[in-house]
């Protein structure tokens, strides 16, 4: 008797099919993952930078900044690089890794890195990380001396800590080395003064970082509402209260003002110290004793709590950077005293801006307190690891990334990034950012960044993260009305005294 042919079992057929798909997927990944990147010159726009396009990833976004800023196609960037009297290819073949904050503009930095690779032969790997993870990974890398990252975006408030353990590479030696830096080309002094200042460690006065950005706090306000309610644009802290009162209409969907309430040395303690300084107060005296709970501090916190609780949005006690941007994007607040880019990003639909409030954001310099204007200032910094095995290559990258035209290409797109005076005087840049759409942004920003910004508006000491958090917790308690302002400040002062005592200050 002949045997019946074996029928294909349905289960086995499905398994075989899945197995074939899995093998094909692994094979494709291996194939495309090992192919070298192709060089593609885009043809669609008249003048564009030559982009490096990897076939496995999405096409690198065509940098609209580069398209729009007609002066800087790749050939011009190459020509500009050749003007420097240094050999850009001296570290050819080296690979460096940079850890940076993951946000919308990173794709443009990736394009610039690709151009840098074309010019120097040094490849730059960008490791994009969310902020908390960036901080944790940097701490591990620097404290262990592993040198996984050659360079990074660094929070300048941590420079004092990392400099103390020699985790950061001093940069002045690279700036002064004529083989590595053409000072006339790089123009380090062209970077905004306060931003440069943040790269210097207050302790040993050594330069450890160069600025990626310059971020003062400015007042962003809805010009349509200011006109509608016939409100004076605030110039003083008293004006600010009056304006917030007049513009506070939660029934119509917007609050008077937004000042961050969330606890954190980079949240409400990013905003409140500016007011403290405006009232003539400070965090510490000369002997490092906390004095922010004095009359000036109380007045500053009374103002802050009054604005937030009476004229702020519901839920402000827990609002940080993300909510601040969201509320501005959606036009849910009439005024916002925060990082200067709030109104700019709110105007950009690609960054989440609601078209209904496009063009309605205007800007004012920080309010004047009894003593001075609020002087908040921050700058993300480029820093180099002392454990890097490619220091020269890394310096060439940092120099390139913060150079004029590269910085312009980035700033043009977002209004954020390389803080150079040259950029703000550039005709193309002004054509866009001084246009009626952005109202008075350039004037207010440059005035604030150059005249009122103070890199030491918060003490840049290794203990600051803990000190800042201790104060921020009590500020949040005051906003949440679980403590009155004086008690909150006194409790904060007690906590800070303990921190400083344990740190050996007294």
């Amino acid at each position, binding site marked *: 008797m002949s045997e019946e042919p074996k029928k294909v079992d349905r289960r086995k057929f499905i398994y075989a099919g899945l197995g074939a798909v899995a093998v094909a997927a692994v094979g494709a990944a291996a194939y495309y993952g090992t192919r070298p990147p192709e060089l593609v010159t885009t043809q669609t726009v008249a003048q564009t930078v030559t982009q490096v396009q990897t076939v496995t990833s999405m096409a690198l976004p065509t940098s609209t900044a580069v398209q729009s800023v007609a002066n800087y196609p790749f050939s011009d960037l190459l020509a500009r690089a050749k003007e420097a009297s240094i050999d850009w290819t001296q570290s050819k073949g080296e690979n460096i890794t940079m850890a940076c904050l993951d946000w919308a503009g990173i794709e443009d930095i990736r394009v610039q890195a690709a151009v840098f690779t074309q010019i120097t032969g040094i490849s730059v790997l960008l490791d994009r990380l969310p902020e908390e993870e960036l901080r944790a990974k940097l701490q591990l890398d620097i404290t262990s001396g592993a040198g996984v990252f050659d360079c990074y975006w660094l929070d300048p408030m941590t420079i004092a800590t990392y400099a103390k*353990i020699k985790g950061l590479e001093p940069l002045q030696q690279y700036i002064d080395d004529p083989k590595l830096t053409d000072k006339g080309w790089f123009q380090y002094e062209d970077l905004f003064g306060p931003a440069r200042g943040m790269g210097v460690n207050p302790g040993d006065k050594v330069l450890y970082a160069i600025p990626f950005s310059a971020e003062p706090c400015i007042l962003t306000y809805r010009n349509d509402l200011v006109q509608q309610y016939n409100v004076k644009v605030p110039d003083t802290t008293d004006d600010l209260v009056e304006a917030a009162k007049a513009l506070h209409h939660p029934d119509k969907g917007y609050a008077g003002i937004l000042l961050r309430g969330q606890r954190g040395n980079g949240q409400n303690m990013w905003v409140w110290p500016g007011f403290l300084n405006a009232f003539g107060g400070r965090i510490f005296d000369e002997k490092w004793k906390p004095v922010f709970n004095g009359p000036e501090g109380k007045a500053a916190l009374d103002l802050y709590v009054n604005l937030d609780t009476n004229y702020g949005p519901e*839920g402000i006690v*827990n609002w940080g950077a993300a909510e601040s941007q969201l509320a501005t994007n959606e036009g849910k607040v009439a005024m916002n005293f925060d990082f200067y880019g709030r109104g700019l990003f709110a105007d950009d639909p690609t960054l989440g801006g609601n078209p209904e409030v496009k063009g309605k954001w205007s800007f004012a310099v920080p309010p004047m307190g009894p003593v001075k204007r609020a002087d908040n200032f921050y700058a993300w910094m480029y820093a180099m690891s002392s454990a890097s095995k490619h220091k020269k290559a890394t310096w060439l990258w940092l120099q390139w990334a913060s150079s004029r035209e590269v910085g312009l290409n980035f700033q043009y797109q977002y209004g954020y990034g390389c803080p150079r005076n040259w950029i703000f005087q550039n005709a193309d840049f002004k054509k866009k950012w001084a246009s009626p759409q952005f109202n008075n942004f350039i004037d207010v920003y440059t005035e604030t960044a150059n005249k009122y910004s103070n890199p030491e508006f918060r003490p840049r000491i290794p203990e600051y993260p803990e000190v800042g958090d201790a104060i921020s917790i009590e500020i949040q308690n005051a906003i*949440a009305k679980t403590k009155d302002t004086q008690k909150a400040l006194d409790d904060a002062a007690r906590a800070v005294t303990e921190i400083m005592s344990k740190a050996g200050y007294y």
Partner: protein
Amino acid sequence: MREQRTAYLLLAPTICVLAALLLYPFFYNVYLSVMNYTVGRESSFIGIDNYIEVFLDPTFQNALIVTFLFAAVALSVETLLGLLLAILFNRESKLSRAALMLLLLPLVMTPVVSAATWKILYDPVFGFFNSVLRQLSLGTIDFLGNPVLALPSLVLIDVWQWTPFMTLVIVAGLKALPKSPMESASVDGASNAQTLAFVTLPMLRPYIFVGIVFRLIEVIRVFDIIVATTDGGPGIATQTLNFYAFIMGFRYFHVSYSATLAVLLMLVTLVIAQFAFKMATRASRYE
């Protein structure tokens, strides 16, 4: 004997790797906890000073209370709700199976993502819940900004995400139970409720305890929800032990203090897990 030796030899590489990955970090952590290492400062051996300091630290005491409150409430609700859902969906029907599949969706979501989504839902201005409250003219509630409501609001996030886990464990238990005791009870005239209370639940106890033990170990270490929503606030109302250990180590650079908190957290978890295991073992001895 020879076979045993071969078995050990074959297991040795795995054991070595596991030992390196598990034991070395643990012992290094203990070592750090008896030093006074803060990044940027000289460190030296200080014995149990860190442990004494921790026990006297009011922030630690607050964190301990917050952690236990969170764990107790979350676990109780998840167990009860999980049991109810398991009994509801323990049927042989396509609808039940489909419902169970849908129930698993929160479980497969990344905890940080689900917490961030809930943060938006809770928001007084942008959130869905307050939008509904406003529609019903009930005003707004600041769920995460109110020191009293913040912790229960976070418990709700944990319950939403992890109740399906308890449901799964209990459903597995229900399916593994023999049918005859229930059938006998039914034949003897017991109602469904009586069968459930006096026959099914006692037999189900070991499975429930297994679920409790697994969840207990996780819920005591709650972290993602805190970071993605309140960051320990308002004030320190939602600052749990694990979160406190994290900020001490990674934000304030007090590595030794953070290691001490981590060791204590581990010991607390071990003790509670041991206790829960004993309860589970006792519960499994039923006739």
